[in-house]
């Protein structure tokens, strides 16, 4: 089966009224397309609606109107078992690797679980082989040293690698990564991002939600800038960063502290 692209048309997400305030429109008419082999970033500040889009794609936020389609299937129109089945090619990597992992389960069980849930991998032996491959792929190597450990025996960066391994093991066509490195130390962020990039190179689509513009610009082919529920600008990373057309993008760029690190070279190289 060929990896499928993701299409979002006229997406509107309202959150119901709460005591003292009316309904909130979090996403206001968003259109976006994500092709296979593409790494796309959505940037914007908190409240811009970027995480609501990720959650709606995964079926974790209500869709007020509009379409979210994977191939020919409109996910927003499906419910229950059919919706779960249709979302099988989608995987989510969340921000907090401390909350995302069940502390009682071993690394092996955590990474194996998506295979069991989706009834992939015929035997225990086959699943074990695939789990080891996935762990090696995300740099938890040798896999034998990691598969027996529990989350508390891992560093933050290692935990997020476990999350990425669990997401990639089912060979998803679309990976949604919501702030995948913002909780991690700077020294281990690049590893997780390069893993997502490797998934893109295998033909999958990666959608990364982040407020970190420099990182998004470095890793994404295209950038989508959101502000108050709307897309205010999109284009190639080079265009958006080098020649922004919307004043909000310019404001965001001006507010980003820079080191001028291009002049720095890596020691030992």
């Amino acid at each position, binding site marked *: 089966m060929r990896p499928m692209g993701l299409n979002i048309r006229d997406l509107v997400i309202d959150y119901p009224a709460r005591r003292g305030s009316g309904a909130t429109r979090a996403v206001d008419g968003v259109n976006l397309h994500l092709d296979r082999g593409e790494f796309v970033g959505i940037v914007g*500040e*908190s409240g811009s609606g970027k995480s609501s889009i990720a959650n709606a794609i995964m079926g974790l936020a209500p869709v007020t109107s509009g379409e979210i389609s994977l191939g020919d299937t409109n996910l927003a129109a499906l419910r229950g078992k059919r919706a779960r089945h249709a979302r099988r090619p989608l995987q989510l990597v969340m921000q907090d690797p401390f909350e995302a992992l069940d502390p009682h389960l071993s690394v092996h069980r955590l990474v194996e679980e998506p295979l069991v849930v989706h009834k992939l991998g015929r035997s225990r032996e086959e699943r074990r082989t695939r789990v080891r491959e996935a762990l090696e792929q995300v740099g938890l190597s040798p896999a034998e040293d990691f598969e027996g450990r529990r989350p508390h025996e891992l*560093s*933050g*960066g290692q935990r997020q690698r476990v999350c990425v391994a669990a997401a990639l093991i089912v060979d998803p066509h679309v990976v949604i990564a919501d702030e995948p490195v913002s909780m991690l*130390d*700077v*020294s*281990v*962020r*690049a*590893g997780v*991002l*390069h893993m997502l*990039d490797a998934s893109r190179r295998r033909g999958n689509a990666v959608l990364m939600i982040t*407020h*970190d*513009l*420099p*990182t998004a*610009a*470095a*890793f994404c082919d295209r950038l989508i800038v959101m502000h108050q529920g709307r897309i205010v600008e999109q284009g190639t990373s080079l265009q958006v*960063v*080098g020649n922004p057309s919307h004043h909000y993008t310019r*404001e*965001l*760029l*001006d*507010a*980003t*502290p*820079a*080191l*001028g*690190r*291009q*002049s*720095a*070279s*890596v*020691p*030992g190289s």
Partner: protein
Amino acid sequence: MMGSDPLLEVRDLNVWLPAAAGGPRVHIVRDVSFTVGRGERLGVVGESGCGKSTTLLSLVGLLPARAAVSGSIRLDGVDILGGAAPRGQALDSARGRDIGVVLQSSMNTLNPVYRVGRQMLEALRPEARADTGQARARVRDLLERVGLPPRVARAFPHELSGGMRQRVAIALALAPEPKLLLADEPTTALDTIVQARVMEVLDALCAEDQMSVILVSHHLALAARFCDRLMVMYAGRAIEHAAPEKISTLSSHPYTRLLLAATADLGTRKDAVVSIPGAPPSLALAHTGCPFEPRCPERFGECADRVPPLDQIGADHHVGCFARHTKGDLA
């Protein structure tokens, strides 16, 4: 570093935190020495667990009660850590008057059940509180200086946005007119644009008052933009002191340069963003050599045997690395 009479002088600071259930205690700050001159801004940078926040908290006596501390901390020539002065008293007066603190989460600093104005009145020095009218005027003035309208004084913390709360926290820290402001990740919880505005406010206020600042941050670029000098910490030790423009040069510590290479800047290509292999050493163990040696691409024989001393390798540039000393000698 700065003149002969620094505002703050920290010598050989060591902090041990009690161990969890039977394990060895954690030696979280190791032989750290630094000074902060009057009006000077020092940035303390490094990754989580490197001891930067603990160093900051030890300056204001906010360490857990069972923590063990050694070394000296002199503020305006007075040892506020121990020595002759009764520990608690010296620390309390320093904490309340001379050192202001801004933490990452202002929600924890502000009292949720009191209006902002009342909390600010309480933070003023007693002499400034004596006249109610003048005290109120001072609160309005402080709010104005952090860019907030007077009506904020009547608001409860939960009625304000994150950026506004952080401005209130800064106004609160500045209320007793401290000589030194400690800011621990003051903008980490904020969005990029709000972060830039809060840093601008902080910048303007510190410049007006000629205030000394210690900014703790894991954000190298942010600290480099705001500070006169940076102290890079790794595994509880200060491994480099440098002016911001020095840290992106070849003479910088290998760890500092790898940290830089792990950070994307606007315009950096993804191939140039690389992580640092390995992990920091456990702080429950003693290190015989350089703590970065196991991960260092430039290590050689001597590095595993003893901890490299911090040596001056240029004007306002001290590096604790044997590889750099050799190069420094040649230069």
